[in-house]
C-alpha cells in the first residue's frame, strides 16, 4: 500500500496520543484511594486484632437487672448478649436490652457539660471544672447556711452502692430529700405483699415449675417485673417438662403479649380484676377447696363477693369464675399474679392483695412452682424504701411549687415525660432556682435544667446491682465500663464524689474516695468481710474481686432458707376488701376507659430514642414509628372509623390526636394506647413522633399504695376526618386457610 502522507501521520500520532492519555486518565479514575494502617501507640494487654473481647456488666434499661456480656472488637462495643452466668436472664436478653448499643452510640448524646443561657431550653457548653465549681459553690453555701435540706435529689430506679453513695452524699449535705422515681415501679404490688405476706421485698414467682398460671393483667412476658426471666420460665412451663404442659390464663381488658400466648384470654372490665380474685377466693372457700383453720374468716371476708355479684361488675360469666377457681386449685402448683391493668386502678393494692390470697389459699407459698419469699439481699442498702410513690412525689411537687426547693438534681429520670401534666411537675420545676440534670440525653426534663452534667451511659460506668425481685437466693452483679468514654462525660458516681470534694467540710471525710471504682471496691470489701466470703472464694479479696468482675455476677452459694410465712392475721383477713374502681370522668360524655399500656421496647418512654426499637414492629400490631389508638372493630364500626383515621381522644384533663388501629382483642368499652412515644425532646429518633397517653391522664391515686392509677381515666373519641396511614409491616393478618401455623391447612 502507498506510504502515509505527513498530515495523515500526524493524525495517527494525535489519535494514538489522545487515546493513550484517555486510557491513563481512566485508569487513574478507577483507582481506589490509599488506605492507612494505623498501629496502636501502646497495645492494651487484652487486645488482639480481629478477636472479640467480652465484658460482663449489668443492663440498666429496666429494673429487672439482667446481666449482660458485651462483645467488643478493637475497643468498640459490637453486640450485647445476656450473661450466661447470670441467674436472672441466664444468657438471654430482650429487645430493649440488646438495643442498648444505640444508647451508647446515640448521635444525640450530650457530649459536654451544658449551662443554661437565657430562657430554659437554651444551652452553651462549659467545661467540667467550671460546671462543678458552679454547683459545688451553691451546694456549699446552702450547707454552710444550714439549708442543705433545700437540696433535692431525684434519681431513676438505681440500686446497689451508687444509691448508697447518693444517700450518704445527701445526708452529709444535711438533706434527706433523696428519692427514686420510676414510672414502672410496682408500688401497689409492694403494698399488697405487705398487706398479706408482711414482706418488704418482692418474692420470687416460680413460673417455670408452675402447672397453672392465673395472671390478672400481669404482662410477665413483656413488661412485668423481669420479663426475660419469666419468658424463659414460660418456655420451661410449656415444653420444658416431659410429663406436663402448664396452662396459662390471662384476665385483662386488652390482650397483651402475654395474653396472646395464654391458652385462655378473658376480657374483664378494667379494674374488676381484684373483684374477680375475691370471687374466686369466695368460690374456693365456699366450695370447700380450702380447709384451713381460718376458713370461716375468709368466708366472712368474701361474703359479698359471690360469683354472681361479681359477674355483673366484671362482665365475666359466673360459671367461668367458678371454673377458673376450681381449675386453679386442682392444678397445683399454680400461681396467681397481678399487674398491668389490675395494678393501675384506684383499687390496685387491694386487688393485688386479693390475688395474693389466691396463692395463700392454694398453699403454694414457698413451694416450687409457687411464690417463694426472697431472703434478704446481699447489700443492706434497700433502695425500695426510697422509691417515691406518686403520692410521695406530690409532696415534692408542692414543695417545689412553694419555693422550698433551691437545687433539684435529677439523675436518669424523666418526670416531665412520665408524670401526667395534671400533676403540675413542669410548673413546679419552673419555680426551682437551680435544676441540675445528670442525664446523658437531652430528655424533656434535662431540657428544662439550668446545668447539665452529662453522666456516662451505663456501658461506660461502674456500679453494682442486686436484682429485685431476686431469684430465690442472694445475687449481686458488678457493672464495669466496656468501652472508653466516647465523649467528655463522667461517671455519675465520680460527679458526686468530686462534688463532695468541691464542697468540702465533712463531705470529703465521709466520702474520701476520688474514683467511683475505688469506692465500689471498698464497699465490696465490706460485704466480703461481712459475708465471710473468704470461706468459699478461698483466695484474698483482689482475687475475689477480679473473679467477680470476670463473671459479672456473684451469687452466694450458701443456700439460705426462704423467709418463713405463717398465715394471714385474722384482722387483716377481715380488713381485706376490694372496692370497685373509681374513674375520672363521667360515662355519658366519656364512654370509654383509656388504657395506656407499657411496651417492652419503649418501656416508660426511655426506649424511644433508640433507632432499632423505633424500627422494631410492635409485636401485636406490627406498627413502627409512632403511636396509635387501639379500638375494638365493633366500636370502630359504630363510629365509622377505619384503620389510619386520626381520632381525637378526649379525657377530663385534655385531648390528643392519634391514628386509630382496629385491635381485635380489646373490650368494646375500652381504648388502649402504647406508652413511650410523643416526645417533645430526646433526640432525632424520638422527637415529635406519635402521642403520649400520659399527657391526658387525670391523676387518680390508689390510696392504699399511693401509686398512680394510670388506667383510671375515662375518655371519649371523635373522628377528625383526617387520615395518617399507620406504618406497619403486616399485610393481611389472617392465614386464609393456608398451611402456615400448622402441618395441615387451617379451616377459616
Amino acid at each position: 500500500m502507498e506510504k502515509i502522507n505527513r498530515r495523515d501521520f500526524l493524525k495517527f500520532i494525535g489519535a494514538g496520543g489522545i487515546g493513550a492519555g484517555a486510557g491513563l486518565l481512566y485508569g487513574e479514575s478507577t483507582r481506589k484511594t490509599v488506605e492507612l494502617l494505623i498501629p496502636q501507640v501502646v497495645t492494651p494487654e487484652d487486645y488482639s486484632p480481629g478477636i472479640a473481647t467480652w465484658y460482663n456488666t449489668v443492663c440498666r434499661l429496666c429494673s429487672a437487672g439482667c446481666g449482660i456480656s458485651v462483645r467488643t472488637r478493637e475497643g468498640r462495643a459490637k453486640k450485647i448478649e445476656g450473661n450466661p452466668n447470670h441467674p436472672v436472664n441466664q444468657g438471654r436478653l430482650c429487645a430493649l436490652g440488646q438495643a442498648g448499643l444505640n444508647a451508647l452510640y446515640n448521635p444525640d448524646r450530650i457530649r459536654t457539660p451544658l449551662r443554661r443561657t437565657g430562657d430554659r431550653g437554651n444551652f452553651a457548653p462549659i467545661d467540667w471544672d467550671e460546671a462543678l465549681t458552679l454547683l459545688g459553690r451553691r451546694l456549699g453555701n446552702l450547707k454552710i447556711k444550714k439549708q442543705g435540706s433545700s437540696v433535692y435529689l431525684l434519681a431513676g430506679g438505681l440500686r446497689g452502692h451508687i444509691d448508697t453513695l447518693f444517700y450518704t452524699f445527701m445526708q452529709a449535705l444535711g438533706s434527706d430529700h433523696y428519692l427514686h422515681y420510676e414510672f414502672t415501679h410496682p408500688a401497689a404490688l409492694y403494698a399488697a405483699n405487705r398487706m398479706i405476706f408482711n414482706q418488704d421485698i418482692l418474692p420470687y414467682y416460680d413460673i417455670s415449675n408452675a402447672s397453672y398460671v392465673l395472671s390478672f393483667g400481669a404482662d410477665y412476658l413483656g413488661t412485668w417485673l423481669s420479663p426475660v426471666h419469666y419468658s424463659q420460665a414460660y418456655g420451661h412451663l410449656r415444653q420444658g417438662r416431659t410429663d406436663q404442659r402448664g396452662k396459662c390464663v390471662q384476665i385483662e381488658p386488652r390482650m397483651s403479649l402475654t395474653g396472646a400466648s395464654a391458652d385462655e384470654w378473658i376480657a374483664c372490665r378494667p379494674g374488676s380484676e381484684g373483684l374477680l380474685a375475691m370471687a374466686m377466693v369466695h368460690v374456693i372457700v365456699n366450695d370447700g377447696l380450702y380447709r384451713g383453720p381460718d376458713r370461716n374468716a375468709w368466708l366472712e371476708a368474701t361474703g359479698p363477693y359471690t360469683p354472681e355479684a361479681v359477674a355483673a361488675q366484671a362482665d365475666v360469666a359466673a360459671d367461668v369464675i367458678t371454673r377458673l377457681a376450681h381449675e386453679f386449685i386442682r392444678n397445683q402448683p399454680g400461681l396467681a399474679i397481678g399487674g398491668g391493668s389490675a395494678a393501675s386502678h384506684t383499687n390496685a393494692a387491694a386487688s393485688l392483695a386479693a390475688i395474693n390470697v389466691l396463692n395463700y389459699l392454694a398453699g403454694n407459698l414457698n413451694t416450687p412452682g409457687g411464690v417463694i419469699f426472697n431472703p434478704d439481699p446481699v447489700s443492706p442498702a434497700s433502695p425500695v424504701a426510697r422509691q417515691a410513690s406518686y403520692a410521695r412525689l406530690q409532696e415534692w411537687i408542692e414543695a417545689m411549687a412553694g419555693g422550698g426547693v433551691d437545687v433539684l438534681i435529677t439523675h436518669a429520670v424523666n418526670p416531665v415525660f412520665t408524670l401526667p401534666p395534671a400533676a403540675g411537675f413542669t410548673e413546679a420545676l419552673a419555680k426551682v432556682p437551680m435544676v441540675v440534670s445528670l442525664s446523658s440525653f437531652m430528655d424533656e426534663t434535662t431540657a428544662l435544667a439550668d446545668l447539665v452534667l452529662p453522666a456516662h451511659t451505663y456501658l461506660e460506668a461502674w456500679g453494682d446491682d442486686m436484682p429485685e425481685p431476686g431469684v430465690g437466693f442472694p445475687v449481686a452483679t458488678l457493672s464495669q465500663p466496656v468501652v472508653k468514654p466516647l465523649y467528655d462525660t463522667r461517671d455519675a458516681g465520680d460527679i458526686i464524689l468530686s462534688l463532695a470534694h468541691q464542697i468540702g467540710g465533712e463531705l470529703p471525710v465521709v466520702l474520701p474516695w476520688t474514683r467511683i471504682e475505688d469506692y465500689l471496691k471498698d464497699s465490696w470489701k465490706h460485704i466480703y468481710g461481712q459475708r465471710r466470703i473468704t470461706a468459699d472464694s478461698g483466695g484474698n479479696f483482689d482475687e475475689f474481686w477480679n473473679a467477680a468482675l470476670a463473671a459479672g455476677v456473684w451469687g452466694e452459694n450458701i443456700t439460705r432458707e426462704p423467709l418463713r410465712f405463717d398465715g394471714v392475721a385474722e384482722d387483716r383477713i377481715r380488713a381485706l376488701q376490694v372496692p370497685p374502681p373509681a374513674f375520672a370522668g363521667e360515662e355519658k360524655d366519656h364512654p370509654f376507659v383509656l388504657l395506656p399500656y407499657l411496651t417492652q421496647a419503649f418501656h416508660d418512654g426511655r426506649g424511644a430514642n433508640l433507632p432499632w426499637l423505633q424500627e422494631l414492629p410492635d409485636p401485636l400490631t406490627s406498627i413502627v414509628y409512632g403511636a396509635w389508638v387501639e379500638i375494638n372493630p365493633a366500636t370502630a364500626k359504630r363510629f365509622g372509623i377505619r384503620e389510619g383515621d386520626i381520632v381525637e381522644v378526649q379525657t377530663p384533663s385534655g385531648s390528643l390526636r392519634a391514628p386509630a388501629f382496629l385491635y381485635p382483642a380489646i373490650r368494646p368499652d375500652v381504648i388502649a394506647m402504647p406508652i413511650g412515644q410523643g416526645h417533645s425532646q430526646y433526640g432525632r429518633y424520638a422527637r415529635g413522633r406519635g402521642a403520649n397517653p400520659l399527657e391526658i391522664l387525670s391523676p387518680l391515686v390508689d390510696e392504699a399504695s399511693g401509686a398512680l392509677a394510670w388506667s383510671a381515666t375515662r375518655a371519649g373519641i371523635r373522628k377528625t376526618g383526617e387520615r395518617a396511614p399507620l406504618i406497619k409491616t403486616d399485610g393481611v393478618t389472617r392465614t386464609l386457610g393456608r398451611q402456615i401455623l400448622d402441618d395441615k391447612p387451617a379451616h377459616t
Partner: protein
Amino acid sequence: MADYREPAYADVNRDILQTMLVTGPRYWIVFGITSTVALVCFFLPWIYQWHVGVGAAGMNRNAVWGTYLSNFIFWIGLSHSGTLLSAVLHITGSGWRKAIYRSAEAMTLFSLMTAALFVMVHLGRVWFVHWSIPIPNPMGLWPNFRSPLLFDVMAITTYLVASSIFIYMGSVPDYAAVRDASTGLRRRLYAIFSFGWRGTAQEWHTLGWAYTFFAVFVIPLAVSVHSIVSWDFAMSLVPGLHQTIFAPYFVCGAIYSGTAGIVTVMYLLRRCLNLERYIREIHLDNLGKLLIALSLVWSYINILELFTGWYSGTSYEYEALRFKLFGFYAPLYWEMITFCALVPLLIFWKKIRLSWNRMFVISILINIGMLTERFIIVATSQPRKFLPAAFGFYFPSVVEIMITIGSFAVFATLFLIFIKWTPCVSIYEVKETLKPLRRAA
C-alpha cells in the same frame, strides 16, 4: 381505489428514494422532539437512578419487579410480528407482504434494542451486567445456566443478530439502488453497504436462496424468544404466574401486539412519507384479518388462564385471581379486556377494516391494552404470594413512568434514523409486484 395509478419502475425508485434522500424541515422537527424526549424522559432519569439506586423506582419488598420488566416484555412482544411475519409471509409467498415488511423488520430490530435497554434499567447493579455473559475468566466463575434469565440473554441476543442479518440481507439490492441514485460520500458509503451489488442473475439467485434460508431459520427463533421470556415468570411458584399456558400466551400476545404495531407504523409511514401508492388497502385488509384471528386466540387463552386459576382450588390461586379481577388494579384489567378482546371484534366489519384512521385508532388501543396486560402480570401477582402477612402493594414511581414514556421516544428516534438510512419500502420487491406490461415507462 378507482383513481389508483400503478407506479412505473422509475416512479418506484424516485418515490421511495426521495423518502430518504430528500429531508424536509418537518423531519428535523419531529426528530428533534423525539430525541429530546428520549434524553429527558429516558436517559436522565436512568442516570439519576443509577446514582441513588433502584429505589428511585416504586418497587418495594412485596413487588421487586415493576414496570421496567413489564415494559421489557412489551417491547419484546412488539418486536415479534416484524421479522416473524415477514418470514412467514415470505415462505408462504404472499405478495402483499413486500411493501410493508421492511418497516416491520425495522420495528423488530429497534423494539428489541429498547427491550434490551429495559433489562439494563431493571438491574440493581447494571455496571456488572457483563457477569451474565459466559466469558472465560481466571476465577472460574460462570453464569448459572439453569437460570431462565440466562436463557433470555441468549435468546434475545441470537434473535437480535438473526433479525439484523435478515433485514440487512433484504436491503442489499436497495442499497445498490441508493448508491446509483446518489453521489459523493453517500455513494461511497452505500457502495460498501451494498457489497458492490451489480444485479447479476447469479447474485439474485444467491440472495433469494439465502433469504429463504434465513426466513426459515428465524421463525422458530422468534417463537422461542417469547416462550423463554414467559418462563421468567412461569418458572416461579408465584400464584398467577406459575402456569404452563404462559409460553403460548406470551407468543400469541407478542404477535398480536406486534401486528397492531405494524398497522400503526404503516399508517404513519404512508401519511408522512406519502407512500399511498405502495402501502394500500390490501395490506390493511390482510393485517386486519390477522388481527381478528390473533385477538380471538388471545381471548381464548385469557379465559383458559382464569379457568386454571379457579380449577386449582387453592387459596393462593383464588387470592391471585381475586386481586387481579377485583383488586386495586381491576380497572386496568377490564380496560385490557375491552381493548384487546372486544374492540378488535369491530374489525369484522369491512368498512372499519378498510378505513385507515379507524384501524389506526384500533391498533393504538390494542397496544395500550397489551402494555397494561404486561403491567398487570407483574403488578398483581407479586404482592399476593404465599404468606398473607407479606401481602403488599405496588405503584410505579415518577421515574418509572418517565422512563416508560421515554422508551417510546427512544424507539421513535431509532426508527427515524432508520428511514433515512434504508429505504423503508423494499424497492426491488415492490417492482416484482408490478404488472410486466408497464415495464417500459
